[in-house]
C-alpha cells in the first residue's frame, strides 16, 4: 500500500480523493493500478526524504556555492560557451508564467504570444545570418550543425561530407553520433584544404565561423568550391559576431547554423542552449524542427501558426526530416528579447567591443617573452596563445590570482591555450591577465 503524502503541489486532500473514488466506484487509489502485475506493483523507491522549501533553498544554495561563477573574477574561457552581458529585461520577461508554463503552440488561437515570438525570432535569425529562412530553433549549436549535415545529404542525395578540422571538436563528435547509423562518410580535413577535397560525391562542406580557434575561414572560396561540385556550404556561425561580420549568407552559404547561447542565454554549465538553423528558401521542405508562418483568421486578422508540419515527426513519422519535437522555445524567446533590445546598433557595438578588446589582449600577450600567437588569420574574440609552459600549469597559476584562463588546446598547438575576450572583460581585467602571464612565463 502506498500511503498518501499531502504535498503543497497536489491540491486534492484524502477526503476529496475519496469523493473522486466514490464517483468512480472504487475504494482506494491503489485499485486504479490493478493492471500492473502484482509482482511489479509498488516497488520500493529509495529516495531521500522530502525537504521543505527552506531546506531545498539551503541545500541547493550550498551546492551552488561550491561552483565558481564567471562573475567571481576575470574570465577568459570561451570555446563554445561565452560570457556576454544579458540585460535584465530578458529574464524579467521570459519568466512570465504565460511564456514559461505554456506548451508548444499547437492551439494557435490561444498561443499567438509564443507563435508571434517565434516569427520574430525567425525574422531576426535570418537577418543575422543573411539567410532567407530560419526555423524555430534546435537543441543546441552541436545538434544543429549535425542536423544540417543530415539535411545536406537529403538535399543532395549524397552520403559524404567534408568537415573542416577547425570545427569544434564537440561538434564533430555530435556530427559523428548523428551520422553513425546513416551510412554517411565524414572526412575531417584541414580547413585550408577543404575546398580542394570537394568532389561530386560531396553532400556538403562544413565549417565554423569564426572557427573553434577563433579565426575567420575563407567562406567565399569554400562556397565556390562546394557549389562547383553541387555540394552545399554549411556554416556554423556565432550569432553575436554577426553584429560586425559579413554574414555567411552573403558568401553563398546554403545552411547556416549556430549556437544561440551568446545572444541572451547564460552559460549555465552548458545548457539549456539554443540551436540556430537557417537556410535558403528552396530547401525549406527539408528543414528540421518547427516553422511558424503568418496567415489570417476567419475574420481576416493576421495570425501565426505552426506550418509545413508535414516535414515533422507527428505527421510524417519515420519519413520526417528529423525526430525533433520539443526544442528550446523559451530560449528562442530569450534571444528574441536580447536581439530586440540590442537592436541594430547595440549588437554592432557589443561585437566591436569584443573585437577590439580581444585584439588589445592578443597584442599585449604576443609581445610577452615566451608567448606567441601561432595563427595568422583574422580573428574575432578568440585566439590561440602558445605558452612557455603547459597550459594546465598556466591555468593553475592564473587561478591562484583568481583569473579563469583559457582552454587547453595543446593537442593541436604547442602548449596552446585558447583565450576569449568579450565585453565583460574590462581593460583592468585584460591588463591583469597580461601581467599574470608575464609573471608565469
Amino acid at each position: 500500500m502506498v500511503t498518501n503524502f499531502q504535498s503543497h503541489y497536489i491540491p486534492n486532500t484524502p477526503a476529496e480523493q475519496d469523493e473522486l473514488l466514490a464517483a468512480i466506484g472504487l475504494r482506494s487509489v491503489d485499485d486504479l493500478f490493478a493492471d500492473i502485475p502484482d509482482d511489479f506493483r509498488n516497488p520500493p523507491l529509495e529516495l531521500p526524504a522530502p525537504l521543505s522549501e527552506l531546506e531545498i533553498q539551503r541545500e541547493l544554495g550550498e551546492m551552488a556555492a561550491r561552483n565558481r561563477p564567471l562573475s567571481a573574477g576575470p574570465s577568459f574561457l570561451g570555446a563554445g560557451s561565452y560570457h556576454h552581458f544579458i540585460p535584465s529585461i530578458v529574464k524579467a520577461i521570459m519568466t512570465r508564467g504565460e511564456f514559461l508554463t505554456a506548451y508548444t503552440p499547437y492551439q494557435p488561437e490561444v498561443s499567438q504570444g509564443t507563435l508571434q515570438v517565434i516569427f520574430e525570432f525567425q525574422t531576426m535569425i535570418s537577418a543575422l545570418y543573411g539567410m532567407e529562412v530560419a526555423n524555430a530553433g534546435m537543441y543546441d549549436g552541436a545538434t544543429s550543425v549535425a542536423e544540417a549535415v543530415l539535411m545536406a545529404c537529403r538535399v543532395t542525395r549524397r552520403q559524404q561530407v567534408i568537415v573542416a578540422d577547425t570545427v569544434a571538436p564537440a561538434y564533430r563528435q555530435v556530427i559523428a553520433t548523428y551520422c553513425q547509423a546513416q551510412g554517411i562518410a565524414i572526412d575531417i580535413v584541414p580547413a585550408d584544404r577543404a575546398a580542394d577535397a570537394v568532389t561530386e560525391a560531396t553532400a556538403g562542406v562544413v565549417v565554423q565561423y569564426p572557427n573553434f580557434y577563433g579565426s575567420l575561414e575563407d567562406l567565399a572560396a569554400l562556397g565556390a568550391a562546394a557549389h562547383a561540385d553541387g555540394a552545399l556550404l554549411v556554416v556554423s556561425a556565432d550569432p553575436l559576431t554577426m553584429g560586425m561580420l559579413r554574414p555567411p549568407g552573403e558568401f553563398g552559404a546554403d545552411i547556416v547554423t549556430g549556437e544561440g547561447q551568446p545572444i541572451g542565454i547564460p552559460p549555465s554549465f552548458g545548457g539549456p542552449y539554443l540551436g540556430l538553423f537557417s537556410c535558403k528558401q528552396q530547401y525549406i521542405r527539408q528543414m528540421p524542427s518547427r516553422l511558424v508562418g503568418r496567415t489570417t483568421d476567419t475574420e481576416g486578422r493576421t495570425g501565426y501558426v505552426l506550418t509545413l508540419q508535414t516535414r515533422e515527426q507527428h505527421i510524417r513519422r519515420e519519413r520526417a526530416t528529423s525526430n525533433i519535437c520539443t526544442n528550446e522555445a523559451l530560449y528562442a524567446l530569450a534571444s528574441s528579447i536580447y536581439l530586440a533590445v540590442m537592436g541594430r546598433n547595440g549588437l554592432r557595438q557589443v561585437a566591436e567591443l569584443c573585437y577590439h578588446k580581444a585584439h588589445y589582449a592578443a597584442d599585449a600577450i604576443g609581445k610577452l617573452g615566451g608567448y606567441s600567437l601561432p595563427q595568422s588569420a583574422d580573428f574575432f574574440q578568440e585566439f590561440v596563445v602558445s605558452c612557455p609552459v603547459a597550459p594546465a600549469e598556466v591555468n593553475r597559476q592564473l587561478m591562484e590570482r583568481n583569473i579563469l584562463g583559457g582552454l587547453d588546446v595543446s593537442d593541436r598547438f604547442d602548449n596552446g591555450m585558447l583565450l576569449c575576450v568579450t565585453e565583460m572583460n574590462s581593460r583592468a581585467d585584460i591588463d591583469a591577465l597580461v601581467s599574470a602571464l608575464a609573471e608565469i612565463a
Partner: protein
Amino acid sequence: MLNKGGNRDTTMMLMDRSVPGRVGVITPELDVPAAPLPDAALLRDSLPLPEVSEPEVVQYFTALSQLNFSIDTHFYPLGSCTMKYNPKVNDEVAFLPGFAGIHPQQPAEHSQGALELLYRLQGFLTEVTGMAATSLATLAGAHGELGGVLMMRAYHLAKGDTGRTKMGIPDSAHGTNPASAAMAGFDVVTIPSDADGNTDLAALREIVSDDLAGVMITLPSTLGLFDTNIVEVCRVVHQCGGLVYGDGANMNALLGRAKLGELGFDVCHLNLHKTFSTPHGGGGPGAGPVCCGEILAPFLAAPVVERNDAGQYTLAEPEQSIGKISGFHGNFGVLVRAYTYIRTLGAAGLQSISGNAVLNANYIMHTLKDIYALPYDRTCMHEVVFSADRQRERGVSGLEVAKRLLDYGFHAPTMYFPLIVHEALMIEPTESETKETLDAFIAALRAIDAEATNEPETVQHAPHTTPVSRLDEATAARRPVLRWEEPAAAD
C-alpha cells in the same frame, strides 16, 4: 484580453516599430585602443535588426505573453504533455549565479556542486526507472529516444550481430518513436494494438526474428492504458535477441507504482519537462535523460558523471559510448529543476503524484463516458482518450469540440492522437488540479455536447472569444511567409 492602444497593440511587429535612432541598450565605452579592422569584405554593410527602446520591448513582449494560455493561467489538460504545475522555487534555484553563471568547461574542481547534483540526479532517475545507469546528456524526449535506439544498435553491433535492421513500434506510438528509429538507421515495423488497447501479442510474435533489433513501447501507452501484456512483450522480444525500449514520456502515471527496468525494459528515456515538472516554456527546453540496464550501460551517451574514491566528481565517457550527442553535459538548468522537484517530493510525494494523476483521469473518464464515446472502457492511467464520434454524428468534430473548450476558458485536449482512435480527444488532467477545476471542465464538456445538439454552429465555428479565430493553415503552408518583410511601398 484587455484592450490595448498605442504601442502595446501587438499588430505591429518589431521591424514595423523600428525607428532609426531609437536605442534599446547602452553599451559601455571602449576602454582599450581600437584595433585595425579586418578587410572590408569581411564586414557587413547593414544589420537589419529593429531599433526600438527598452520600454517598447517590455511592452511588446508583455502584450504578446498575454495572448497565450498557460498552466499558470488556464487548465491545460493536453494529453501526452503532462501540463502539471511548475514550481517557482525550481526556477529560482536554477538561476542562482553558482548554477546559471558557470562555464561548462571550467575546471572540475570549480564545479563540484554542479557535478554532484548531476551525479545524484543520475542516481534518482536510475532508481525511479529501476535501471542500472543514466546519462543526462540528451536534451528532450526525442533526443533521448535517438540516444537510446543508437545504444540498441551499438549493442547488437558490438556483439557482431549486424543483421538487426528492424524496429517494432506500436501503431499508437508518438511520432518521435518511428522518426528516432529511422534516424538510428532502422526500418520501422508497425505493431498493432489488440481490442483492449494492449500490444497485440500474436502480431508481435509474427515480427520477432533475428532481424529485429527491438521494440519501442510507450508505457502507459498513448491510449492512456497500462499494457497488461507488457511482461510478456518483453519476454518475447528478449527471446529473439531483441531489446525493449521504453518511451517514458508517460511516467507520471507510474511513479512509484512500477519500474520499467523490473518489467523487462532494457532502456528508456524520461521527459523531465513532463513528469518532473520543468516548465515547457512554449516548446522547450526539455531534458530527456536515458536510463538503462547493465548490459546497455557501457553504450550510454557521453558524458556521465562519476565519483572517485576521494569523493570527487568528474565527467567520463562510458567505455563503448555511442559518443557525444549534445554540445556539453545536457540541459543543466532543466536538470537542476528536476533535481529540486525530486528533493521536494521524495518517494511518498512521487507516489502521490501518480496516484492523483491517475485518479483525476479516471474521474473525468467516469463522469463523461455517458456522453463521449470511450474506445477502451477500462481503468485508464494518467490520461483518458475519448472519441468524439457521437458528436460527429451531430455534425460536430472532435476538433470543434476542442476549440469550443477554449471559449469556456480551458485549453483543448490533444486531438486526433493517437492515430488509431477515431476523432480522438486525449485528456490529461495531471495531479496538480483541484476537484473544482475538474468539475468545471467536465461541466464544460457536457455543455458543449448539449450545444452540439442545440446550436451546432456555435461549436462548429468556435472559438469565438480568443484573440484570433480559426486560422487559415492551408494557405500558410501553401504560400509560406516565414519572416517579416518590408511592406511594399504604397504609391
